[in-house]
């Protein structure tokens, strides 16, 4: 008998692509997508259930379909539908609690895959340069999506204790970037001028949207419970990324970042969350070794390649197009150095 996979958050970004990917896998009989909003288009072969996972009704879905694998993708940084900070916390944390309660009651459940984030490590000058899965953060994240993720992981650990027969995999994803999907870091790099924090040049690490899906696929199909960092190899400095993209940077003193953020929100372009401001100040790099050795996942694209792919997908070079800027030294070289030739 094939497997029945339930995916939460299918109207959102990784969810919609992931159900398409997983339904074609051999050995998967049925894919059930759950979300509280209707997805743009339900792919063929996926049963969509319009449900709020905060509602106990989700338990009936799990039980009646004899679901054996639950992929919990709905926790996210961005509100699903014009919701505020309170509503996003509700869906993230309370939704996870309800879902886990439903799973605990369902004897058919064999595997649980939960989406988390590397933001759980926080990021401060007192942390090591690379976070491994067992690194204790010096400063716990105190708000926003990072704190939600810490709480979600806490509940998931509790669930794993109570249901030792269920293989639980927690994937901590680095900030996602790619040409297709929107992401908080993607919209930040879409700004014509990048606001930065004066005196800080964070090391950034991303994961490509395709790599993210691949990691989820491996986690669902292989039986490798545990917590894993899912991130690309290598890092880029923010200054370096801005130059590659051709975006000018505008540094603000750390004290003024709040004001800048308010301004950005008023303009309506982008809102930088507290978590993003922290990322743009101190940066965050994780060690993907455990995922490579134990999960068998290796990111196909490095951070630099992910960023290049993202830049290519933006379809617009920045104000300081690197290809144009490169002409200045190129021309200088031609003019300075070709004047002098052996015969002239």
């Amino acid at each position, binding site marked *: 008998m094939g497997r029945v996979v339930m995916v939460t958050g299918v109207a959102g970004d990784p969810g919609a692509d992931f159900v398409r990917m997983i339904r074609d896998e051999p050995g998967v009989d049925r894919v059930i997508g759950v979300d509280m909003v209707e997805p743009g288009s339900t792919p063929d072969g996926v049963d969509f259930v319009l449900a709020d996972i905060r509602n106990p009704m989700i338990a009936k879905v799990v039980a009646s379909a004899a679901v054996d694998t639950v992929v919990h993708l709905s926790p996210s940084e961005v509100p699903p539908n014009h919701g505020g900070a309170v509503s996003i916390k509700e869906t993230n944390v309370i939704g996870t609690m309800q879902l886990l309660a439903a799973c605990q009651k369902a004897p058919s459940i064999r595997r649980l895959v939960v989406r988390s984030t590397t933001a759980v490590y926080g990021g401060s000058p007192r942390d090591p340069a690379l976070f491994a899965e067992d690194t204790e953060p010096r400063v716990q994240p105190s708000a926003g999506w990072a704190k939600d993720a810490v709480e979600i992981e806490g509940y998931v650990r509790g669930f794993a204790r109570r249901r030792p027969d269920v293989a639980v995999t927690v994937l901590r994803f680095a900030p996602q970037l790619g040409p297709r999907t929107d992401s908080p870091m993607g919209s930040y790099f879409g700004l014509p001028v990048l606001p930065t924090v004066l005196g800080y040049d964070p090391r950034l690490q991303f994961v490509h949207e395709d790599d993210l899906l691949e990691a989820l696929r491996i986690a669902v199909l292989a039986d490798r419970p545990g917590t894993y960092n899912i991130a690309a190899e290598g890092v880029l400095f923010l200054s370096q990324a801005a130059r*590659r993209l051709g975006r000018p940077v505008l540094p603000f003193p750390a004290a003024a970042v709040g004001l800048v953020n308010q301004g950005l929100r008023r303009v309506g372009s982008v809102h930088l969350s507290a978590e993003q401001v922290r990322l743009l100040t101190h940066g965050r790099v994780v060690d993907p070794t455990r995922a490579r050795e134990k999960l068998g996942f290796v990111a196909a694209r490095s951070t630099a*390649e992910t960023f290049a792919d993202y830049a290519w997908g933006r379809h617009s070079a920045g104000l300081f197009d690197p290809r144009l800027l490169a002409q200045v030294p190129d021309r200088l070289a031609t003019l300075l150095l070709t004047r002098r030739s052996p015969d002239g």
Partner: protein
Amino acid sequence: MGDARIIPFDGAASGARTPAPRSGRRTARPARAVRVPEPVEGEVPVRSIEGRPAEERPTRERPVREHEEGAGAGPRRAPGTGRSLLGSLAGAVGGVVGGAAAGLLDGVAGPGWEDKAADGLAFLRRRITGDYEVDEFGFDPELNDKLMAALRVVYEQYFRVEVSGLENIPAKGGALIVANHSGTLPVDALMTQVAVHDHHPDRRNLRLLAADLVFQLPLVGSVARKSGHTLACHADAERLLAKGELVGVWPEGYKGLGKPFSERYKLQRFGRGGFVSAALRTGVPIVPCSIVGAEEIYPMVGNVRTLARLLNLPYFPVTPTFPLLGPLGLVPLPTRWRIEFGAPIRTDAYAQEAADDPMVVFNLTDEVRETIQHTIYRLLMQRRSVFF
């Protein structure tokens, strides 16, 4: 003469440095330049040089760049639109500066300036386009070389550092350099970095383990990262050593750095021996390093504790010139330095569990500390004067 150096300028790929005949130089012109319709070009003497279309450029090794190139050559953007301004600017800058500078440099600088100019421009090109690599700690070797060049002046002209025992540092593989700390500001660590970078036969990069204060400070923190430094913690030290890097540690920390002038050259407690257990876990040798001369650069005669607490600093130094002379007091005294690297202490003979055995760790810590202390006494005896 400078032919071979000019050719690779075409692409960012420096791997393609092959000598080419003079005719090859014509193709060395950046391909993009052709697309730019600029009026200034008429005045440029090299106007007749033909560029190749982007598609014919030599393919580069890195797939990323190819990707970007492909994007540039693709149909998504009409070539020439929106880039004429910067393009003509580039042309104008190139024309004026190139014409004037080439004539001037011919007279002023001797032969060989072309090579230097080509190198400098290639560096500039990589920096402004972001086309350089850093490791996961943020170490930027290319930028670090420039930083080292700046510090070299201080190293050679100001402190006139004399270095010995570099043969004790292995040519490759991990090793932990342990040194005494002094001088109120960690100038000794930077000078040791220059010593290894400039004078070791393999020109190795010394990765320093720094206090968290360094990374809390704006600007200082990011420069430190780019120069290859990282936080002094077990995780980072072991990761670097396991990667086969040369790591430098000053285990006295603030206690050594900010000790009063009256206690100069008296080694403080060597932390809790964390550096020894890191070396034991990774099985790398410990190279003791003794630095003489750094103690006298800022003679710390007092410490304003209240001010230090207020500013959240480990100490607030008072020297004969600081804060009396204000910023002028930040100029260190021009002492003459000696840096000596001692015989390496091997750790690979110990069992894996030794790192968790406090007795082994304490004994090794003491051994390293005693070695450094005795070397310092010997160097002090040999020293004729603090300044000469």
